[in-house]
């Protein structure tokens, strides 16, 4: 794991001190709310429906036990004993007081955590593969590049007042767990023919009210040229992105307006003028960062674990957990373990302080002190010995963290919605709970297979509904909460934007509509197709029929 050195630590301390001063000036009336708002946002502090909300970055989605315990402590001391993991590898605290915020930032900084650039029109926390360093699929460890970008983008003097927010994702696996194609920039790390590595650069994807799967603007960018190329992309955007209309200010609108080819040409032209020697990362620094991530001291183990096999055959619950939540590891004798934060009746993505402590202990004791968060609002223990899996499972079970539903119908992404968010039009959490209840039967959920349901409480799409197999969007229809369903989206390597199924439904009809969609799929599926595959083969009609025919 990358360890912050004195420079990184002093930087966080300075940032915290700066914010303390800004809060004092705001409370003293020296800053107006208009002037203060962008400053607090750049420190992740929003004013929501009930209180301030603090969004803390989890760089490359990676936490060590000390950090996880500190988050738990903050949840207890300054919040109501829980935190909410978001779709962007951040954690949010919902009940923060402005007067406490500087102290919280100090406590975060003590363990190398921060809220820098978790909001505002700047470069946000880079999304990374939660299986980085653990999966055999990857061509390199993407966290290395996330750390390179973290440093480069932190208080970037030129790019801190962009037209709009800016999100970058990096994946190094063919299977994309970062939703790279719907980020402002998606970087797909590839192995070139000559053995050199490079990024396929996708620019201008996004969700919100104008969803796009981003086009590729460069097929192969040599990795050592990454920073100068990013500088070129950001500079073209900073200069030419629209600033007259907040809804048209994201880079996707610029790319779509110019066309990907013309946008790429402008980037190339700017890139050719940038002094690479000054802009690109020197090899020595890359080596230093790389070394920090390559330190997991795996043991040489047999690929087969008797303890694991025995537990699997004796305990059907463990076997089910293994089927759904455990993924292969690059190292023989190890596994990647997903921890679902989608138990029945749980708020998707919420973890209590006690649960955070449990997971921190498990990571420390059994998992090389490594814990990850996913954009699907779950946690991952990336390096667990097969031998230890039954013990880890039992501990997770005791903490209500062993729900065996990863990527199944009840593993629902939901934004905070109208229960917390000042922007929302409708609630998202109760809808997720309704649907999960409808599919509480785990046998049936497994029979249905992979099905990604994602719910947003407004058009800003924090709940990723555009890229859901079944998307649910809360809308305000004549003063009532209504929900618009869409089908066929994907945020993965086969990215696509979902299509609206039909007229919006009232809240109490959503779960049964999902049930009807699932039945329609089960009737139509062939050869182990996923829901998404069947939809792509048969189209919208049979599903429309299933939901709306009975209503007539």
């Amino acid at each position, binding site marked *: 794991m990358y360890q912050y050195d004195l420079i990184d630590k002093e930087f966080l301390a300075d940032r915290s001190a700066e914010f303390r001063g800004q809060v004092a000036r705001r409370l003293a009336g020296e800053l107006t709310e208009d002037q203060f708002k962008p400053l607090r946002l750049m420190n992740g502090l929003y004013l929501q429906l009930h209180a301030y909300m603090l969004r803390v970055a989890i760089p490359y989605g990676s936490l060590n036990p000390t950090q996880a315990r500190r988050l738990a402590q903050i949840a207890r001391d300054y919040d109501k004993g829980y935190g909410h993991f978001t779709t962007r590898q951040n954690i949010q605290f919902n009940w923060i007081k402005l007067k406490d915020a500087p102290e919280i930032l100090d406590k975060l900084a003590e363990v190398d955590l921060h809220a820098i650039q978790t909001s505002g029109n700047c470069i946000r926390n880079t999304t990374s593969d939660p299986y980085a360093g653990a999966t055999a699929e990857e061509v390199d460890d993407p966290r290395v590049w996330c750390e390179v970008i973290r440093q480069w983008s932190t208080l970037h003097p030129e790019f801190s007042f962009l037209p709009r927010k800016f999100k970058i994702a990096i994946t190094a696996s063919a299977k994309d767990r970062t939703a790279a194609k719907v980020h402002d920039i998606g970087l797909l790390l590839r192995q070139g023919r000559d053995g050199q590595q490079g990024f396929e650069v996708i620019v201008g994807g996004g969700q919100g009210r104008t969803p796009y799967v981003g086009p590729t603007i460069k097929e192969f960018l040599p990795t050592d040229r990454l920073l100068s190329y990013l500088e070129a992309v950001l500079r073209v955007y900073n200069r030419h992105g629209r600033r007259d209309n907040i809804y048209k200010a994201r880079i996707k609108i610029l790319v779509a307006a110019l066309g990907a080819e013309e946008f790429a040409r402008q980037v190339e032209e700017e890139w050719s003028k940038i002094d690479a020697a000054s802009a690109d990362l020197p090899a020595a620094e890359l080596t230093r960062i790389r070394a920090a991530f390559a330190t997991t001291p795996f043991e040489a183990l047999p690929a087969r674990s008797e303890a694991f096999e025995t537990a699997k055959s004796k305990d059907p619950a463990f076997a089910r957990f293994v089927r759904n939540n455990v993924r292969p590891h690059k190292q023989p004798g190890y596994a990647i373990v997903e921890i679902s934060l989608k138990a029945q009746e749980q708020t998707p993505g919420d973890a209590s302080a006690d649960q955070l402590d449990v997971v921190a202990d498990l990571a420390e004791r059994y998992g090389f002190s490594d814990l990850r968060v996913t954009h699907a609002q779950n946690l991952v223990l990336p390096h667990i010995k097969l031998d230890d899996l039954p013990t880890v499972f039992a501990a997770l079970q005791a903490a209500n963290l062993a729900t065996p539903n990863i990527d199944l119908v009840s593993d629902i992404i939901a934004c905070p919605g109208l*229960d917390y968010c000042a922007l929302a039009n409708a609630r998202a959490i109760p809808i997720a709970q309704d649907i999960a209840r409808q599919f509480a039967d785990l046998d049936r959920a497994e029979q249905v297979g992979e099905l990604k349901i994602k719910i947003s409480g407004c058009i800003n799409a924090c709940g990723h509904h555009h890229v859901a197999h079944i998307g649910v969007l809360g809308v305000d229809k004549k003063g*009532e909460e209504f929900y618009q369903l869409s089908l066929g989206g994907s945020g993965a390597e086969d990215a696509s934007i979902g299509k609206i199924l039909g007229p919006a439904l009232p809240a109490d009809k959503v779960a049964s509509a999902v049930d009807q969609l699932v039945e329609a799929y089960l009737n139509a599926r062939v050869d182990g197709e996923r829901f998404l595959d069947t939809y792509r083969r048969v189209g919208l009609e049979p599903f429309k029929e299933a939901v709306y025919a009975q209503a007539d």
Partner: protein
Amino acid sequence: MKAVVANRLIDGEVVFWKSGQWVERFGDAELFDSEGLVEQAVSVGKSQPTVVVDVYPIDLVQSEGCWAPLSYRERIRALGPTNEPTHGKQAEGGDAVEALRHAAGAARSTGRVDLIRRK
């Protein structure tokens, strides 16, 4: 009928105007039937930038003899999040909270009230 709401600057708490002061319970809020007095309260609130932010009036609707915010959003602000019934103002319980929770709205006559009218 209207009330005037804001968030307290120092902690973000939702507060309601009551004859020159900001109070935390919707049940204690001043109810206005005069536009002029509403505007006056809002303008006093806006002149207190180190005390409150986001000052605005909300519409109220009568339900079973009680006044409740018309919009679902404002009811959630007056109560707390529906997914955590022990969090926020609703935690203290009591008749006023129960009445708000079960308040019927203008657009729906039965069941859960699903009104959302933005400020």
